[in-house]
């Protein structure tokens, strides 16, 4: 009896739909996400129902992590020169003796968290290697500490522009750290802040949810 021949099937699988899916997902990620801003510390911000969007330019951002270390940064996407002016101002007012190259390096540095005495040392390190440098945080006390001077000089540089003040704190940071940051701002006669949070929905049935629904209906 002749044996039944099983036709040999090709093992070649058509990958084309797979490619389609992969690139579709890729497109989604490119469209829906934003690059993470470089930061020297990881900060997990709390949630809030606030919907106001984060400004990217003309803002001063003070961050504090869970151990209370404070970092200072200037956000000036539109005008990189503004950041240079800030460090120049601080260099002059605190006579830090920074070189031109070090001041240029500050412009590339996402945030600084060192006392004035350690600033020269930090800025001598190229920006790419700064993450290996353990930053102790800007010194703070109940009177504002060195953060007061950072804010004062930055505000002085931005005169004539509408400057916003951002505070970004970690979930597990203790209240005194927050309070000291507020003090440093208040000493500069700044009383209006924006705290960076992650959006969450207003709980259903609450007054805010009712108000939001009304606004939504009105805009339609």
């Amino acid at each position, binding site marked *: 009896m002749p044996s039944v021949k099983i036709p040999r099937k090709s093992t*070649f699988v*058509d*990958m*084309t739909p*797979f*490619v389609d899916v*992969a*690139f579709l*997902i*890729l497109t989604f*990620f*490119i469209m*829906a*996400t*934003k*690059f*993470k801003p470089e930061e020297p510390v990881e900060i997990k*911000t*709390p*949630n*809030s*129902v*606030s*919907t*106001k*969007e*984060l*400004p990217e330019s003309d803002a001063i951002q003070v961050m*504090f992590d869970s151990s209370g270390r404070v970092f200072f940064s200037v956000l000036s996407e539109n005008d990189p020169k503004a950041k240079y002016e800030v460090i120049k101002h601080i260099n002059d007012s605190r006579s830090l003796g920074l070189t031109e190259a070090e001041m240029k390096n500050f412009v590339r540095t996402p945030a600084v968290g060192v006392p004035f005495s350690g600033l020269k040392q930090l800025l001598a390190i190229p920006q790419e290697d700064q993450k290996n440098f353990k930053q102790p945080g800007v010194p703070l006390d109940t009177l504002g500490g060195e953060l007061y001077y950072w804010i004062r000089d930055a505000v002085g540089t931005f005169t004539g522009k509408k400057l916003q003040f*951002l505070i970004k*704190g*970690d*979930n*597990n*940071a*203790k*209240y*005194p*750290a*927050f*309070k000291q940051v*507020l003090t440093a701002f*208040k000493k500069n006669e700044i*009383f*209006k*802040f*924006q*705290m*960076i*949070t*992650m*959006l969450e929905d207003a*709980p259903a049935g*609450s*007054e*805010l949810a009712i*108000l939001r629904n*009304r*606004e939504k209906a*009105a805009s339609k």
Partner: protein
Amino acid sequence: MASIDEGGGGGHKKGPGVKKAKKLSTRVDMTPMVDLGFLLITFFIFTTTMSSPTTMQLFMPKDSKDEDQNKAKESGALTIMLGKNNVVYIYRGQLLPDASNLHTTTFKGVRDSILQMKKDVINAHVHDAGCTKIQEEARLGNSKVNPPILPDPNWKNACLDKDLVIVIKPDEEATYKNTIDILDEMAINAIKRYAMVDLFQVEKDLIKKIEVGN
């Protein structure tokens, strides 16, 4: 028909020396392309963030020395103290010397307390001249500010809770998250007047005593 017959030449047979051109497969191996695609996806997942952060507004009062700051009506004051381990202590009006009006709750329970307080304040409301002004503002709304305040259809109720003042007092052991959560609670429950101040020494001692007792 219109199709081109590749068999060619009207049944003409090729000679023995003429080799038939081998038909190459048009199939392309897509596997490396898949690899590349997923590699890029992985890269994007790691370097980007999904949600864009939002900001929450906070207005602090000036630290003024004079004590005639807008005194709150005792009947409408609710003090919320934030302690260690997400515990919330609340009391209405003044803290009694024996602390009998102090209640311990959590962040889940605090909303009910706030809403209950708001209800009680509204029930005890007495109309006065200041009230008419608030009603008028709510009725007209304000389109000049950004975001605009819409005219309130319930403008008659706008001033009912005007005596309600919530005082937030975070302890030294309270976390930043607690502070934001309670400020958020003000937004959720549409509390118009609230303030964030420091604890009195009496309250500090009291919280410490409760925490040690636990």
